[in-house]
């Protein structure tokens, strides 16, 4: 081929190359959208249009595997866009007015005097709200809290949650824990145990990372923490969305649970929200 400087689109090489590209495209189309997908079995419609539609990536309509085992949802709360927006619309002042009865058990400053009742001061709004909804809806043992929540509206619960979240971070009395307990707990909190499918607790509960709705654990009542982890491990508490916490709790030994409870209750305060 000699190279005459023919200017502009009269250069025949344009046509050759573009033509070759188009041919390549057409061949790839036929092989990739029709021929190869036709070898896939068990994938719904077996006619040519079905094959092409699947290969293109068109939505396949109704999900084919539609029979579901009936069951209860773990919680009625879902962190949709609208729910996340609602979380921000509680009023702390109004919540404070409603909190009279709550204070009897949970303490006037949100720090309870009884180890079986959780501290609520400085807790995340989303976490408190979800537990309130779950108690009210029977997703969490209603025997304890149900009677208090029966009359509360969604706005009431949002206000209460916002009120408690606004209370200042408590400083738990320093309890000395043995070095070995501290080391085991720290290891689980900071790095976890990968092959037991244990991410570090701090990855969801802070400070490494924060999953929406995950409660703060620092400065929580020790007995309460231990009790709840044991309930999650046994499956008697099952309001965690898609078993997020049950799958963790099941992997922990009872002594690890105890050490973690000791570690977290020793904290200087809840992580900042």
């Amino acid at each position, binding site marked *: 081929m000699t190279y005459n400087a023919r200017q502009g689109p009269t250069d025949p090489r344009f046509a050759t190359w573009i033509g070759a590209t188009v041919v390549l495209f057409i061949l790839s189309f036929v092989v990739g959208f029709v021929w190869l997908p036709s070898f896939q079995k068990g994938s719904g419609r077996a006619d040519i249009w079905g094959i092409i539609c699947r290969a293109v990536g068109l939505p396949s309509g109704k999900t084919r595997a539609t029979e579901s*085992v009936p069951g209860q949802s773990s919680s009625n709360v879902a962190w949709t866009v609208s729910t996340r927006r609602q979380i921000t619309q509680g009023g702390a002042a109004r919540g404070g007015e409603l909190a009279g009865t709550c204070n009897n058990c949970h303490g006037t400053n949100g720090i309870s005097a009884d180890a079986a009742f959780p501290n609520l001061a400085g807790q995340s709004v989303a976490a408190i709200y979800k537990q309130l909804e779950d108690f009210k809806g029977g997703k969490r043992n209603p025997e304890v809290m149900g009677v208090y929540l029966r009359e509360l509206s969604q706005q009431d619960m949002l206000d209460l949650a916002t009120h408690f979240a606004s209370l200042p971070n408590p400083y738990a009395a320093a309890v000395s824990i043995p070095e070995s307990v501290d080391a085991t707990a720290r290891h689980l909190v900071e790095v976890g145990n990968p092959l037991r499918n244990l991410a570090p607790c701090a990855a969801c509960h802070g400070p490494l990372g924060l999953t929406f709705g995950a409660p703060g654990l620092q400065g929580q009542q020790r007995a309460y923490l231990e009790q709840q982890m044991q309930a999650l491990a046994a499956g008697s508490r099952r309001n965690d969305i898609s078993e997020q916490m049950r799958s963790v709790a099941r992997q922990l030994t009872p002594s690890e649970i105890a050490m973690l409870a000791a570690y977290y209750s020793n904290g200087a305060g809840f992580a900042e929200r």
Partner: protein
Amino acid sequence: MPPTNEVERSEHRWAYVVASVIGFVFIVIIFSSVHWAAQPPSNLETIDASRLHLAGEFMESNLGTAVQPDGSVIVRVIAQQYSFVPDCIVVPASTRVVFRATSPDVLHGFLISDTNVNSMVMPGFIAVVSTRFDKPGDHLMPCHEYCSVGHQGMWARVKVLDRFEFARLYGNQSRASCAGK
């Protein structure tokens, strides 16, 4: 037009070599797609990520291994920060297994060690991967896409049982898993 000098002649020869190399690659790819029906995932189903647990296919009561009328199994899995649910998946060997996975939060992915099962898991979509485990055995199933700071803790397990043992141990369960054991 024929080549006019030695440079162009050798270029033409090389062009044939290049075409053969590329052609060979295509032949291998096409052969594997035809002979083993090997193909990347191709299934577009969307789902509302934030509502998975409320109702529908990915409620927790519906997760796990489900034997189908035709003998194949469907394994429904959720990938979330930072666990797979169920985190221990049990399947029978020598059976067609279809994984259906989705996420309520961020991008995840999984591979099953010593197999070529490998898929992304994307919130809003149902990822579908089908395979067949030839032999019983235990496999690891790590998350392989960065899903934030707990990613390195996200390892599930897959237990492949002999078909009859699977039927014996799990045959009467509508949704089987080895989680919690």
